[in-house]
């Protein structure tokens, strides 16, 4: 991996009316990297991707892909990447091969080269045997693979994937993640957006965490974990009488030394603690004094979820959850 960034993003801004979808987003991606934009729905990931793929014009700022500006050279930029959109975008009444041939022509492939690239991609996505079948008859996983294959036809130096694993089964997700890592091993730079922490953690060389249109943290997995230090995430389930107010208990817990963050999610509680071994007995004791039982305890090593919780006071998965900061 050299140190010449293939993607340089400088202070991108985009608003829709009064909503600032993307605010001063800047990052660089090195050649051969897998770079992930991680954040909840509505964080601005897709808007950023849309600007990089020249679908949206930024209000201000610019980005260079392989040296070409998205503002001044959009046609050159479009030759440098292949986009895998979040939703499947295929002509379902055409066959897999007809789809690939058409999209290949849009990427300016012709004649023998076009057919060779189609064969290569069909082999890569494992659809050689089904190439003449109508896409409408394909399973969801097969459509996803073809959706990705189209972006690979012109062997671009950059692949941009916008949440490609949303709504698919675990096996197809596994195949897609493996394919992305294979592509990366062959030298393709990957820009990946997801709201699944595990995916970002597994495949990425570097990760940018986005929230409310801003990048709130960025770096390698290890660098990001350091933000929360050695904090443990402790998940608790309480058994309480219906209608019983737990606020006095939560107030007491917030006052304890060693608790950095406390929030409730789906009826469960989560907190960040400096040392779970010290804090847990205190939690049990105070719960008992309020006639509330702790029925389950889960201790997690520091991860990106904890980082997001630490930085925003909210869970990564659902931006709308009820949260309470310590």
């Amino acid at each position, binding site marked *: 991996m050299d140190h010449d960034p293939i993607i340089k993003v400088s202070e991108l801004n985009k608003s829709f009316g009064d909503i600032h979808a993307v605010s001063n987003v800047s990052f660089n991606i090195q050649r051969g990297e897998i770079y992930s934009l991680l954040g909840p729905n509505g964080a601005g990931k897709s808007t950023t991707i849309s600007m990089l793929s020249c*679908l949206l014009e930024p209000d201000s700022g610019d980005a260079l892909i392989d040296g070409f500006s998205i503002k001044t050279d959009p046609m050159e930029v479009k030759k440098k990447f292949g986009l895998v959109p979040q939703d499947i975008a295929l002509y379902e009444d055409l066959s897999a091969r007809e789809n690939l041939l058409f999209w290949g022509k*849009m*990427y300016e492939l012709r004649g023998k080269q076009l057919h060779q690239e189609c064969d290569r991609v069909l082999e890569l996505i494992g659809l050689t045997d089904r190439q003449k079948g109508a896409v409408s008859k394909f399973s969801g996983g097969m459509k996803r693979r073809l959706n990705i294959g189209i972006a690979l036809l012109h062997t671009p130096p950059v692949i941009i994937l916008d949440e490609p694993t949303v709504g698919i089964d675990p096996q197809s997700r596994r195949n897609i993640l493996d394919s992305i890592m294979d592509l990366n091993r062959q030298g393709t730079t990957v820009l990946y957006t997801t709201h699944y922490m595990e995916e970002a953690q597994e495949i990425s060389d570097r990760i940018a965490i986005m929230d409310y249109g801003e990048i709130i943290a960025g770096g390698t997995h290890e660098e990001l974990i350091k933000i929360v230090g050695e904090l443990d995430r402790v998940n608790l389930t309480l058994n309480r009488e219906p209608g019983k107010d737990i606020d006095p208990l939560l107030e007491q817990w917030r006052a304890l030394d060693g608790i950095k963050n406390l929030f409730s999610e789906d009826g469960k509680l989560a907190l960040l603690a400096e040392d779970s071994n010290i804090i847990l007995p205190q939690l049990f004791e105070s719960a008992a004094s309020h006639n509330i039982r702790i029925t389950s305890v889960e201790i997690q090593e520091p991860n990106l979820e904890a980082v997001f919780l630490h930085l925003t006071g909210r869970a990564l998965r659902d931006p709308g959850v009820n949260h309470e900061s310590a």
Partner: protein
Amino acid sequence: MKVLDLALKDLLRATRSIFALMMMLVTPLLITGLINFAFGGFFGEDEIDITLTRVILVNQDEPAEQAAFNAGSMLEEFLAGEGLNQLLEIENESDPEAAIQAVDNQEAAAAIILPPDFTTAVTGESAKTQIQLYKDPTLSFGPALVQDLLQQFIDSFSGSSIVLSTNEALLKQYGLSLAEQDQTQLYVQYANQAQARGEQLENQQNPEYVVTSLDSTEPQMNEGRSIIATTMAGMMIFFIFYSAASVAESIVKEDEEGTLPRLFTTPTSASTILGGKFLYMFLLMLLQAAILILSSALIFKISWGTPFSTLIAILATITAAGGFGLFVISFIQSTQQSGVVFGGVLTVSAMLGGLFTTGFPDLPAVWNTISLFTPHGWALKIWKTTIVGASPSEILLPFLVCFLFGIVLFTAGTLRLRRRFA
């Protein structure tokens, strides 16, 4: 090149849709076939015969003994003449009540009752008289034709009276006068010429019921075939407009399916992408028109006019339909709203344009005027003119109007779509 790739992709997709093929090609032929069948035609026959319109003539005309001609007999001869005997079956009856009863019993389409002073009245020698035309209200074509012919006959005599009066006045200025025999000869001569001219005009202006002479050396469609031709033209125009709107709708559909945004991420300009859609629209409508014209010529033996005029008519229709479809679809936000366009706008505009009433010759004049406010009406006008073998110069005006409609609506629709997808 990419424009062609985009257009060919959409054409390929169109061939995969059974529904689209049915709507584009089968339905117009099917509807025309049903109408053909209703008129007694059969696909494999060389000729289509219209059921003769049975007319009962009660000729009570009693010209004066010294009268040089008998207008009642002339009318009888006129209606039973060589051209009209393919359309009308004339039966003489002496009792007016019996004639009216026959129409009431639907044994005849109309009854003409000539008064005893018919000849005297048409020569202007007596006060006004009244000819009674009793029509079956459930029929449209036959009685309307009889009324038209009767009016034409009467008009010819009115014209003769004017000619005679003018002649008399002119000769009087020079102190001259015409002998009574010469006056009668001039009167009858003018009336005959006027009737002949009337037939000629019927051929040109009302192709719904073309009256042709069997002596004609030009191969022409018979009357039934002419009705089928205009019906087919109406159906073809309607479904070409439908296809144009479908193509325009496919832009919105592709946007919803994500393939349009994906196209915008490829190194393909927005102009090329829209250009591809327009080329697809043009090719699809051209193919549709060509297939419908050729197949209807084979199945219904329709003569569409000279190849050049037909080509001009196709281009006019395609331009008008393309512009109209694009303009109308530019107002919808999603394909869920397109039902309103297909079910409402397209159908109502086609109705106003007269596409569904091609077989009704006696529509009010205001109806024809309204139709000229729609591109459909002008498209129908150009086809009606082309079908009767008009020369390219005669179809120039409807062509220009269709073209203008198309260009204006196309520009407006394109601007709206560009603004939306920019």
